[in-house]
């Protein structure tokens, strides 16, 4: 029986010609787990917001939405608040109150629930989520993952029939994201709640979906089981294909037959069955690093750093050389000192022992005025932290460059068309490019990026990587720290891994990720024991085709 039904729903924002939603007809059954995917700007969020009246944006609209057989507008605000739960992307801003118990109770208080029921519901939620330990904590003390779990729990306390999640894990690190999405699945399985979820990282949710709906330019481009959708995306050469989990992409790119593997485990089995014996060509050629060790952009020798006199050491003797003109990726878990290392490279944190050299000069001896003008610059994790003006043009003009240079950089970052927009009205990817343009106007020889791919969809990632490539081609050295090992494996020249405040190892991605057995890409894990150094879906597909071609 249908829980949600939209009939020829079309929508356009005020002042916009283009329809954000174009004739969307959709039915979602009770108890389904539906994954809604699509590129940024494909209308996913707008569609989801149409399923709850208080969140529906203003604009021109036609068509209708039914919930449980009644038009959505017939349900009053209280009923909608109770029956339809909506979790958004931002971990911090969704919180209303300052203590965990109060946050859990907030929705119930708003609905005017009586005290005994409220106590019971809150207690139930706290136990279901294992929150007893932090029930009386201040929300400011929680980690991002805990905050998002709290957001979920405080929605679930109202016992909604439909749970809508709009990119809930995109601001979390991979471990917290995995934990959160597992919890959502547990909610679906144990409570039978109907779930509609969108997410850029599909690895965790795609295989388990009852149904996948793909949106493109405001209309539904494909829908069905994960297998069917992946086939449709591949056959239709649709851009969303690049966002699918690695095993599926490798399978279709290798033109494998049968049912595509959805998880790493299935992918591994697929390769095992395809190559019961050792394949003829097990390794791809490893191109040696084309960078000379002598011409170093960054030279760090045995640096130690701590944030306070009695604080623990964050960096414990890091020694590192980054060649000029390379795209260097620093990976590692949470709290291993990645971001702190970046801060020492740009002089915000000063190590208490050891030395840092940039382009052969000691960092300490470069005057501050010169350091951030033409030497080093950093793009923070949240690009919005650089914005302080009302239009992107003013942002760029703030940097004091002449009009021609602003035009050049804007063209390079492809933000010319966005110059008159307010920075906060841009999409996440556009904000990233705008902030990058601002940073590039300082003319850095060394560009530092902190988690640049957080919350980016796969298309944006490819574009962003191309932009970074162009910069390194022009001679800029780019250093990024990231949790996104798939991105690092695909695009970096060199990868280093930090652990416990020290550099563990550093190598070209192919060698780096093929040596690791756990901390590696999905392709690396699924091809373990079959291929030696396949680290991306394309690598796996290439080796597969080469061997299969040889056999026939």
């Amino acid at each position, binding site marked *: 029986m249908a829980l949600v039904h939209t009939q020829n729903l079309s929508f356009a924002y005020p002042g916009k010609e283009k329809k954000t939603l174009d004739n969307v007809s959709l039915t979602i059954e009770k108890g389904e787990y539906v994954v809604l995917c699509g590129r940024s700007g494909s209308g996913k969020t707008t569609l989801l917001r149409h399923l709850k009246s*208080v*969140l529906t944006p203003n604009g021109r609209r036609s068509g209708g939405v039914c919930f449980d057989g009644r038009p959505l507008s017939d349900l*009053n*605000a*209280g009923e909608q*608040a*109770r029956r339809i739960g*909506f979790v*958004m992307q*931002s971990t*911090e*801003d*969704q*919180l*209303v*109150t*300052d203590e965990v*118990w*109060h946050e859990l109770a*907030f929705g*119930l*208080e*708003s*609905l*005017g*629930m*009586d*005290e005994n029921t*409220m*106590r019971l519901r*809150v207690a139930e939620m706290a136990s279901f989520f294992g929150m007893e330990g932090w029930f009386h904590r*201040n*929300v*400011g003390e929680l980690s991002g993952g805990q905050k998002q779990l709290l*957001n979920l729990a405080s*929605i679930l306390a*109202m016992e909604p029939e439909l749970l809508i999640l709009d990119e809930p894990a995109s601001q979390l690190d991979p471990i917290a994201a995995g934990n959160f999405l597992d919890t959502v699945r547990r909610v679906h399985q144990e409570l039978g709640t109907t779930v509609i979820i969108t997410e850029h990282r599909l690895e965790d949710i795609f295989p388990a979906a009852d149904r996948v709906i793909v949106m493109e330019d405001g209309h539904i481009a494909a829908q069905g089981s994960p297998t069917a959708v992946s086939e449709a995306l591949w056959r239709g050469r649709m851009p969303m294909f690049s966002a699918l989990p690695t095993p599926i992409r490798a399978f279709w790119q290798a033109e494998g037959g049968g049912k595509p593997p959805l998880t790493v485990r299935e992918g591994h089995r697929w390769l095992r069955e395809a190559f019961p014996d050792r394949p003829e060509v097990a390794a791809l050629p490893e191109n040696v690093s084309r960078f000379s060790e002598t011409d170093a952009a960054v030279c760090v020798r045995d640096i130690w750093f701590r944030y306070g006199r009695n604080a623990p050491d964050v960096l414990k003797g890091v020694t590192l050389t980054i060649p000029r003109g390379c795209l260097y990726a620093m990976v590692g878990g949470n709290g291993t000192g990645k971001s702190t290392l970046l801060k020492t490279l*740009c002089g*915000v944190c000063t190590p208490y022992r050891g030395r840092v050299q940039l382009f052969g000069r000691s960092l300490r001896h470069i005057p*501050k*005025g010169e350091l*951030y*003008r033409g030497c*080093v*610059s*950093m793009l*923070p994790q*949240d690009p*919005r*932290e*650089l*914005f*302080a003006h009302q239009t992107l043009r003013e942002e760029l003009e703030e*940097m004091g460059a002449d009009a021609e240079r602003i035009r050049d950089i804007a063209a390079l970052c492809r933000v010319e068309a966005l110059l008159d927009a307010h*920075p*906060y009205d841009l999409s996440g990817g556009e904000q990233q490019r705008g902030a990058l343009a*601002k*940073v590039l106007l*300082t003319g850095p020889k060394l560009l*530092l990026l902190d988690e640049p791919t957080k919350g980016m969809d796969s298309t944006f990632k490819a574009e962003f990587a191309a932009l970074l490539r162009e910069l390194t081609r022009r001679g800029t050295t780019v250093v990024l720290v990231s949790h996104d090992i798939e991105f690092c494996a695909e695009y970096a020249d060199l990868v280093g891994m930090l652990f416990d405040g020290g550099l563990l190892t550093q190598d070209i991605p192919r060698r780096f990720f093929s040596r690791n057995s756990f901390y590696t890409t999905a392709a690396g894990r699924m091809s373990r024991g079959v291929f030696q150094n396949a680290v991306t879906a394309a690598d796996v597909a290439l080796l597969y085709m080469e061997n299969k071609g040889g056999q026939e």
Partner: protein
Amino acid sequence: MERDVFSRCHPLTGFVYFFCAICFCAVVRHPMYLAAGFLAGLFYFLLLHGEAGMKKLPGMVPFLLVVAALNPVLNPRGETVLFTLFGRPYTLEALVYGVVLAGMLGTMLVWFGCFSTVLTGEKIVYLFAPIAPALSLVLVMTMRLIPSFQRKLARLAGARRCIGFGLEEQTRWRGKLRCGAALLASLTDWALEGSIITADAMRARGYGTGKRTHYRAYRLSARDGMLLGLTLGLSTAAVTFGGMQAEFLPSVSMERPGWGLAVYCLLLALPVLAWGKEELQWRWCIRRI
């Protein structure tokens, strides 16, 4: 604070107690009562804050000395003239009164210090939420946002520093102020954008759909009843017994304190006594184990 009794009580108990205590401290001028109030408050303050409290106290001493010394200058009444200043008499009585005033002020500050620690913001909000739901919600959100904004400010300053707009690099006030204004603008944009999401989240959870109820995180227990009863009983007794009048100008005269003083001491030492009782109970329990 885990060992303080009032910190673990219902906020109402603490609120009523501190209301009574601070009202007495603001009005009573009798030196003996004053000394009792100050010592009880000081003892409680140090119990609550430990070593850190020791460092906080000396800061208010110069201010109190100024208050004490200044009173005779501004209030020239009094019989015993010590000397004349700017042609006005500087009298002993006025100086004594000045010292008493300073003592009252010090007592109030100490008691307010205890109040701030025991009745944290969320407890005050909890107390007033049923009376003023919207206002207390504003207060709750503000108190959540302040530390979050301060953290964000640090991040913003760091981010701007890395593109050459660091506050640290500015030596002139003009530059500092311009940097500060840009930071404030940046923070405002971010904060207001976040407020849209918060407002959405509130409405998505049914805010404004009807009359709000309130989750009761605290319950009035028998102990709360006892403490409340003691507070109100002792306060009434102290007022009825009286004996807390004192006059300083033009001459010093004060009532003989009787039972009133004992009751008053008991009232103001209540938190310390309750603390002590629990300590003893623990000792006793541990010995039995």
